[in-house]
């Protein structure tokens, strides 16, 4: 017997009313928000990213804030369009992977039995089969689809990890008394899954979503960079690919090469910060002692 009455400070599962105060979360959201804004609005203001001109490989100037490519295209315009492309891929991958992982994880863990055995086997298999080679093979097949098809492909290799996490969490939630209590109240299975379990998965889902978005962006970048993304998806990765193809770095055209990579890294770091923030909300022990 343990006596507990005091409003628990630590063991509390994150309720919706828990204040979302976390410096990391705010910083991360700010970074992500900036990129979303740039991706959504940027292309409207930037010039035509495909406009080819005679000002080739010009360093940043008033006319071209981020200089030009070897075919005289404006790097900034390309970067803004690529931001949109990369974000699209990241978000589509993130959402799809999360939806699949939710279906597989929650259904399997809640219903149990052979379905669960099957689902977890499936996700374990997808986890151990090396992702990038698989994606390379599949994108090759899906050559025509553009960013969405690419995102679909990347999704295939990125749902398994989140599914495992969500399954584990659902398993633990399923065993909670409040789920049993809902059953005793007479709630139906789907209602329990949707209204009792899902809300408590929100922080985990958010973390997995963010994680999948980073993964999607990084994988797309790698594929595009290797020239395997099946069509210039107009993403940061493909910018890097073209820069690399034109030996941008060895010719000193850092303005072409550095920004896309930096964007990936900064956005990635921003998203990671969001993840940390969520982690800290889930587990307050992770907060820095000083904060």
């Amino acid at each position, binding site marked *: 017997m343990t*006596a507990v009455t*005091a409003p628990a400070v630590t063991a509390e599962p994150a309720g919706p009313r828990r204040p979302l105060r976390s410096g990391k979360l705010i910083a991360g959201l700010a970074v992500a928000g900036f990129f979303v804004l740039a991706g959504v609005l940027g292309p409207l203001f930037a010039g035509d990213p495909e406009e080819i001109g005679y000002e080739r490989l010009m360093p940043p100037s008033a006319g071209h804030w981020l200089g030009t490519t070897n075919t005289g295209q404006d790097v900034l315009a390309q970067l803004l369009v690529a931001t949109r492309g990369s974000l699209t891929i990241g978000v589509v991958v993130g959402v799809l992977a999360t939806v699949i992982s939710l279906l597989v994880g929650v259904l399997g863990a809640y219903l149990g039995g052979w379905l669960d055995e099957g689902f977890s086997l499936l996700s374990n298999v997808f986890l151990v089969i090396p992702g990038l080679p698989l994606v390379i093979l599949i994108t090759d097949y899906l050559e025509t689809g553009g960013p969405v098809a690419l995102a679909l492909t990347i999704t295939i290799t990125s749902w398994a990890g989140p599914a495992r996490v969500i399954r584990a969490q659902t398993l633990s939630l399923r065993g909670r008394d409040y789920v049993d209590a809902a059953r005793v109240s007479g709630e139906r299975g789907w209602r329990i899954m949707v209204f009792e379990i899902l809300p408590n998965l929100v922080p985990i889902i958010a973390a997995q979503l963010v994680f999948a978005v980073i993964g999607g962006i990084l994988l797309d970048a790698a594929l595009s960079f290797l020239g395997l993304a099946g069509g210039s998806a107009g993403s940061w990765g493909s910018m890097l690919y073209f820069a690399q193809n034109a030996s941008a770095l060895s010719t000193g055209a850092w303005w072409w090469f550095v920004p896309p990579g930096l964007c990936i890294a900064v956005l990635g770091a921003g998203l990671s910060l969001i993840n940390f923030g969520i982690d800290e909300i889930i587990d307050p022990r992770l907060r820095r002692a000083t904060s």
Partner: protein
Amino acid sequence: MSVLSVRDLSVVYGGPRPTHAVRGVSLELDRGEVLGIAGESGCGKSTLAYALTRLLRPPASVTGGEIVFRAGDGEEVDVLALRGEELRRFRWRRIAMVFQSAMNALNPVISVRRQLADVLATHEPGMSRRAREERCGELLDLVGIDRARLSSYPHELSGGMRQRVLIAMAMALNPDVVVLDEPTTALDVVVQREILQEIDRLRAMFGFAVVFITHDLSLLLEISDRLAVMYGGRIVESGTARDLMAAPAHPYTVGLLGSFPSLRGERRVLHGIPGSPPDLSLVEPGCSFAPRCPYAFDACGEVTPAPLPVGATTAACLQHDRTLRPAGPDPGLAARRFTAEDAGGLRPSRPPGDPEPGGHQTGVRDHGGART
């Protein structure tokens, strides 16, 4: 001659809303005695225990007071001043501790042998491997566990056995003081009884003093020599078990005693203590029990009561303060009743939303009210 004196100890958990978990606690622990500390969850019992063993970690810090340890030869140690190597050597040899949940206090991936031997290897580096092994075996014998279990991992032992392993571990260096923080709360009553008897037997054998912490007052009354009742970070009443049971002076103690039905005895009025424990992050003058106290009067919200001798016990309650209540305590309290109806004094204003204590008596067969 006390082996451990605590004077005016205060502990605060830092942070945006600092929690004043222990507030000016003073205690004396005599050599070989069992001192029971009772109190509701969250009243600061464990924090006090951790302060005694110097195990507080940030954000907790001792903000005042002192702890003095007196060894058998009379040498005094300022426990709070110990640092580094000194502190390391002091720990366990002088004050050992048995934790609440043996499941968590034993490392799940290290064998019992290594966890026992670790203590010996650290504090008695001269000891040979063979001697250590022998001593580990002896320790298990001591608590009635088969030596063969040395190679077991914690998950292979039952809850009671784990608790015994912890006790064996506490015995390893013949400490002067053993702090037991709710050592049996997680256990079955039968097993709980076994463990208590085990502790009693070992204490008789080695003569260490025990600080026994639990919220189970009935248990404490049974096993301790002296008792301290904690509420809201303070010790509100202390005395010998017999005196405290016979003549509790603090309304909280009265309420607590009234919360335990007697197993075989007469059936009597039973009531809980309505309301919730105080918020330890608030530092306000006045008695922290006042909002739940049926006998609270105006001064309770303004004056922080100091411990006063009341009969055979010492209680921190303004009802017994002659300057404030020249007429003496409320008759209800004097009769050791804890009901609003019985309370002659002002009814305290309840914290918003707190329920009426109504109905708490219904359904209980009242066999004649207070005992004589």
